[in-house]
């Protein structure tokens, strides 16, 4: 990790400027041009915060919730929300509703490709939309918790506690998926036609949070963020976080690497940025909007946040044979600007590209976070513990 330069600002100084309404805040898209025009030294002096955004499927997500006691008391051992099984191996009336859990009677892939009409992600979206959700709980009964069954309608307002608690979000870089096999396949990256006839890619490129702070210098435990339209926090490295990926000359990882664990109160989020997904042939998931503010502490952070789509290389991987068999072969690298242009060349063949991440809503998130900071409603936090990235 590179050291701070002498001419730097502190987060406390930036917060003072935000409170006075004097902070200069740019979206990561605006920062690309600014760094090109002014250079990193001048940009570091003029800009205080760069806001990022992404709106993408984030499967490793879920809701931790407490549904309250109704005497006689209960220690639930099995819990369902709208017939979606939740993890109930926690105390009393706590449970976890995972985003990818499908409804208990879903036919899954028995009729291939399965449609996965309703799952944990949809439960979370329904709660946010104010809809009542049917809760069902079972228990074996104990002397202290005699109740064996509970069934009732719950709403976001009636549940005593609801938190999104996501073990792995905001992947730093990701695979661009193609299919070299001879049949159409249905993956978490969407449908892939045979013979490499489409290439599906995720992330928001130059807007994506972890491309703007590639060594996680300013992001750590306690970083306050835009999460699902409300406030959330980074609570550490995500699962499968890779701290030492191969990188390009700008420090941008060349493969899927850094990840974040996030937490945020569901109450206060907006269903526009928290969407249940039905991914054909794959399963249920959650599309989540995340925006992370990057403080421009010094010219190095100005340089990092000046990253453009053309600086980001993504690995093209075969999901027909290689990926399911754990073969880590990369067919080639393509840059994000090429992916956004609508087609790339793979093995001398022109392949149309298909985005999985909504760039327009990712930009909307970066702009919303920018507005919050400009209005003095959102202050930056000092990370209390770093996330290793080198």
């Amino acid at each position: 990790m590179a050291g701070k330069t002498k001419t730097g600002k502190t987060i406390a100084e930036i917060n003072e400027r935000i409170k006075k309404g004097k902070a200069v805040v740019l979206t990561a898209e605006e920062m690309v041009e600014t760094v090109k025009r002014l250079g990193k030294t001048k940009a570091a002096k003029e800009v205080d915060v760069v806001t990022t955004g992404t709106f993408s499927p984030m499967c490793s997500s879920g809701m931790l919730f407490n549904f309250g006691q109704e005497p006689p008391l209960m220690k639930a051992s099995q819990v369902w929300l709208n017939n979606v099984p939740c993890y109930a191996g926690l105390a009393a009336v706590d449970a976890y509703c995972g985003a990818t859990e499908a409804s208990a009677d879903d036919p899954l892939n028995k009729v291939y490709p399965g449609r996965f009409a309703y799952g944990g992600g949809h439960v979370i979206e329904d709660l946010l939309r104010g809809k009542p959700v049917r809760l069902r709980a079972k228990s074996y009964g104990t002397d202290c918790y005699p109740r064996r069954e509970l069934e009732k309608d719950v709403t976001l307002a009636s549940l005593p506690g609801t938190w999104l608690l996501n073990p792995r979000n905001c992947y730093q870089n990701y695979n661009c998926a193609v299919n070299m096999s001879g049949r159409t396949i249905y993956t978490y990256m969407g449908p892939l036609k045979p013979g490499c006839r489409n290439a599906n890619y995720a992330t928001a490129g130059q807007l994506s949070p972890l491309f703007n702070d590639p060594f996680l210098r300013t992001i750590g435990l306690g970083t306050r963020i835009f999460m699902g339209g409300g406030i959330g926090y980074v609570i550490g490295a995500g699962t499968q976080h890779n701290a030492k990926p191969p990188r390009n000359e700008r420090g941008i990882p060349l493969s899927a690497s850094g990840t974040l664990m996030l937490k945020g109160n569901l109450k206060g989020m907006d269903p526009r940025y928290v969407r249940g997904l039905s991914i054909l042939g794959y399963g249920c998931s959650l599309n989540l909007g995340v925006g992370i503010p990057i403080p421009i502490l010094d010219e190095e952070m100005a340089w990092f946040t000046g990253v453009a789509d053309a600086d980001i290389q993504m690995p093209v991987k075969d999901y027909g044979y290689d990926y399911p068999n754990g073969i880590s072969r990369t067919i080639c690298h393509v840059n994000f600007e090429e992916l956004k242009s609508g087609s790339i060349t793979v093995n001398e063949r022109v392949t149309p590209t298909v985005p999985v991440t909504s760039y327009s809503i990712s930009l909307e998130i970066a702009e919303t976070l920018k507005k919050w900071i400009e209005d003095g409603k959102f202050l930056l936090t000092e990370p209390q513990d770093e996330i290793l990235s080198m």
Partner: protein
Amino acid sequence: MTEEANGFRKIVYLSFPPEVSNRPVVCNLALLFNLSFNILKADISPRHEGSLTLELAGREVDYHKGISYLKQNGVKITPASQKIFRDEDLCMHCGLCTSLCPTKALCVNLDNRKVEFDVEKCSACGMCTRVCPVKAMIVDMNENDLR
């Protein structure tokens, strides 16, 4: 065929009652009205109700004559674009639907990165209704037509 003759293009969805499904009405569009047709989807069995999605091209005046001819022969006609629509509140503009769209009716606008839906190009095949992860594409046909 000259460019003028080919200038008019439309995708239509035809339903054939059982008594019509054994008569060669579609090839008469070419023979009698000089229309060229491209079959995008067909589901016809003798003595059962059938359906056919056609892209018709030719002169506009011939197109209307051809359509009248089909109607006279008991074929029900719906423009394909009336069969499918997008719920604008639900659409996230991710772009996933563009992966299987056979006519490029759904495509990403390279300037604003939003997904555009051109109903005139749509053949109402229904692939997008299955691919869309938030069910924003809605097709007004019975499920069996989509198989």
